[in-house]
């Protein structure tokens, strides 16, 4: 997909140019009319817009999250904490053992 602003080539399906950040255009798969990639329906024929040359449904409505390094570190530390608590819940102390043996 070519950016209409800077002519940089972008992979299909993107909303913005990876080079200049402009809104990208795509072609309606029904009538071939140009549409912005964030349009949900073609202005010319009213059909839903999907990425040209692709049968895959539009992913515009799928929320995505970009994880940063601090996010990943936090998730990893949370996972460690959960694992530690799982282990602790399966281990016994003398008091637990006394109850178990009566």
């Amino acid at each position, binding site marked *: 997909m070519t950016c209409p602003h800077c002519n940089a080539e972008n992979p299909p399906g993107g909303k913005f140019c990876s080079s200049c950040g402009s809104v990208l255009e795509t072609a309606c798969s029904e009538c071939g009319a140009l549409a912005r990639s964030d349009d949900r329906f073609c202005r010319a024929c009213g059909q839903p817009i999907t990425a040209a040359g692709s049968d895959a449904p539009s992913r515009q409505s799928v929320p995505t999250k970009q994880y940063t390094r601090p996010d990943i570190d936090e998730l990893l530390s949370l996972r460690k904490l959960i694992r530690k608590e799982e282990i602790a819940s*399966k*281990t*016994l*102390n*003398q008091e637990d*053992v*006394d109850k*178990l*043996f009566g």
Partner: protein
Amino acid sequence: MSFAYRVLAIDDSPHFRILITKLLKRFGFESVETGENGKVGLQKFDTFKPDVVFLDGIMPEMDGLAVLRSIKGKNASTIVVVTSSLSERDKVLQFKESGADLYLMKPFEEAKFQEVAKKVVTILEGRSKASS
């Protein structure tokens, strides 16, 4: 106070064998034998015929669980106190389900050992009264 009950302690740690022998004698058990592994322990079990076995849970070659099952198969009335650092619920349950009477978690304080020893004596005395 002294007790005539025979006690066998099976543990692969020489330090622990010395320690538990001292604790048992200090508590009042006069007749104490030890075994350094499961195999030797079972041989001593056959000859010494103990009333109580203090059994290590983790030992090389033959682990505590296998020794426990063998002891209970030979004489189900023998009181077996498992002495182990194993604290996983599943492992402890395996010992209980295999017939362990008590479980003393290592490391332990002498007060806790005495508490367990008192329980052992109570069980044995209760049996003596019931049979007389």
